């Protein structure tokens, strides 16, 4: 009976015509709301301040959003398998310190420093993954412990000192652009596109989603879930290292405090962007829109010159309003379904 209702609904959709059907299917996607919210905010801020649409501001916004994308990917790739990585920022910080130590203290070329820093981030992710699968401990506990380990290493190696002598060539990626679009943003879009493809069309992507959706069912269906968990934490380390290195490239110096405020950003962008907190769902478009949305809100609050003492309050209220678009979408989607059911 239920199946026939669905068939009826699909038939109705087809009969309603291509555009209406396409719009409805777009509206059913969980990342639609964050895209809509982002567009609304963009329009509002465009009208509120003439400086908003200046190339200088748009360059800054898109670049920061791109950096948020990498921070969020580091968290999303673990959340999607049902875990979390509390040590994400510390891995980013350690990567930054290793890169700074190589390029500033040792005077090595970025061609040596960057691979070593990437290797550091990757090894940190592998360390987390290894401990989690071997000890069977919750990722919360393991990454909490490794957060302290990595933070200690950051402080121990750097002693709190920044590394300032970063080769200028290394800042090209973080500071330059192609036709006004930052290289970092193009890089982020390319990575998200690749991930969207992997999650939709590649076996490994489907296995990651299956593991996050139901670990036991995935294991019983023959997926080596331990390998998937290990892979997701390794990738988390890779994304954290990438984000850290991009910050160094943008700043032109390696600051040991890098990553200290990534935890909230990583969860906020990933979850608002449609990554299910209990695993099994991932949206590349959602993460991009969510990163742009959060950056827009922070940028917009400064553009609107709000009272600094109440800035956090405004930030919270706008985020709440923006994400409430999702509840409106769900409500409308449910109403459409009910109408169709009643009609059938």
């Amino acid at each position: 009976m239920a199946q026939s209702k669905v068939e009826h609904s699909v038939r109705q959709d087809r009969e309603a015509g291509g555009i209406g059907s396409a719009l409805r299917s777009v509206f059913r996607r969980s990342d639609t709301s964050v895209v809509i919210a982002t567009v609304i905010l963009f329009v509002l801020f465009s009208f509120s301040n003439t400086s908003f649409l200046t190339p200088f501001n748009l360059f800054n916004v898109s670049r920061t959003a791109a950096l948020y994308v990498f921070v969020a990917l580091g968290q999303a790739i673990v959340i999607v398998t049902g875990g979390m990585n509390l040590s994400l920022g510390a891995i980013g910080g350690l990567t930054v310190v290793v890169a700074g130590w190589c390029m500033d203290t040792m005077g090595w070329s970025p061609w040596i420093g960057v691979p070593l820093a990437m290797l550091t981030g990757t090894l940190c992710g592998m360390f987390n993954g290894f401990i989690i699968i071997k000890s069977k401990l919750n990722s919360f506990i393991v990454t909490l412990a490794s957060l302290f380990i990595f933070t200690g290493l950051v402080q121990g190696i750097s002693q709190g000192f920044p590394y300032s002598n970063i080769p200028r060539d290394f800042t090209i990626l973080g500071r330059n652009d192609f036709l006004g679009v930052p290289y970092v943003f193009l890089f982020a879009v390319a990575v998200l596109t690749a991930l969207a493809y992997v999650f939709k069309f590649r076996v490994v992507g489907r296995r990651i989603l299956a593991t996050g959706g139901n670990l036991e069912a995935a294991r019983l269906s023959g997926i080596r879930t331990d390998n998937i968990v290990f892979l997701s934490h390794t990738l988390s380390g890779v994304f954290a290292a990438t984000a850290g290195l991009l910050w160094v490239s943008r700043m032109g110096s390696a600051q040991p405090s890098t990553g200290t405020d990534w935890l909230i950003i990583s969860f906020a962008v990933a979850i608002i962007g449609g990554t299910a907190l209990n695993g099994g769902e991932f949206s590349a478009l959602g993460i991009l829109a969510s990163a742009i949305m959060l950056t827009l809100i922070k940028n917009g609050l400064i553009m609107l010159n709000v009272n600094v003492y109440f800035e956090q309050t405004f930030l919270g209220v706008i985020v709440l309003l923006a994400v409430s678009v999702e509840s409106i979408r769900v409500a409308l989607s449910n109403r459409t379904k009910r109408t169709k059911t009643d009609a059938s």
Partner: protein
Amino acid sequence: MKQQHARLFSWMMLVSLMMTMILAACAVPDAAPVAPVAGDAAATAAAPAEAAAPASNFKPVWYAPAPHPYYEDVRKGVEAFEADTGIAVEKQIGPDWTQDSQNQRMEALAAQGFNAFSVYPADASGANGLYEELTAAGANIVNFGTSTAQPTTASFAVATDVKVAAMRAAEELIAAMGGKGNIINVLEVLEDPNTALRKQGIEEVVAKYPDVTIIQEVAGMTSVETAVQKVGDALSANIDKVDGIIATGYTPSVAIAQVLSEYKEKGGERVIHAVGIDTDEVVMQAIANGVMDGTIVQNPYGHGYLSLLLLQYMAEGYKPKADAYFVDAGFAFATKDNLETYSEDILAVTEQIKAELLDKYLEK
């Protein structure tokens, strides 16, 4: 499977135990008297109190909450004190900025018999509870770098007068702007009571100049990343009307140096004057390149040296004079013209304060 887990945990426990033992073995041993450096004989002779024999029961600690370049500069002052007096100081840097960590570590030090503390309080109000317990047990405490909220049982605070420093920074910025124009005021952490004082100082100076306006305030910067983003946003919002940017915190000063350097590199044509605080390499480079006009140079050497010297005097029986609490450690203003000499200016300030310490702040 369970056996495997048990074996794994056993190995992990063993490795952890071994690492703990190795770290314990590598740890710095308990403070022992340090011989004065021979080359510092002249400096020792110049300060009579320093030549006095160390009080036998004087066991000082210097405590900073977390690794930071500022504390490394303060440590140099502490090491100079050790060299001048022959008194060993237990130097501790904590793992984070929380009062909780500071409480635990300082209580442990007190339990080991240390009785004089030169401390940067992690929390201006929260530290008072710890101080009350330590002073009740007979310890002396001197804040360095900042003060605890009043009333406090700390005997002194050796620090920069943040309001005066902010006022000087504002005066220098306005002078660079030719006495007119629009300013962005970049504050650091709003939870810090010093931020309100700095804000107040800047506003008082701006109020004296009718042609100067603060067009934007930005704040809430706990990391350089956030600061770079916010300063960049503020600059974007006001790019057609901003003439000057001022920061009175370390993090936003670094951010201003980064953002303005990039703005100039990308061909930004607007003349934007900037003044910051502290001597991060990025800031000093920006001053040398003409991107920033100057920076307020605090006296971290003095914060370390003078706080320990006050503790030593108190161990010798001196007591704080009535109403004597805040020891202004002074500051200098570094520009492109005095980049080579500003550190000598600030050392001279320390020497002057040392010379008047007994008369101005202490009594038997």
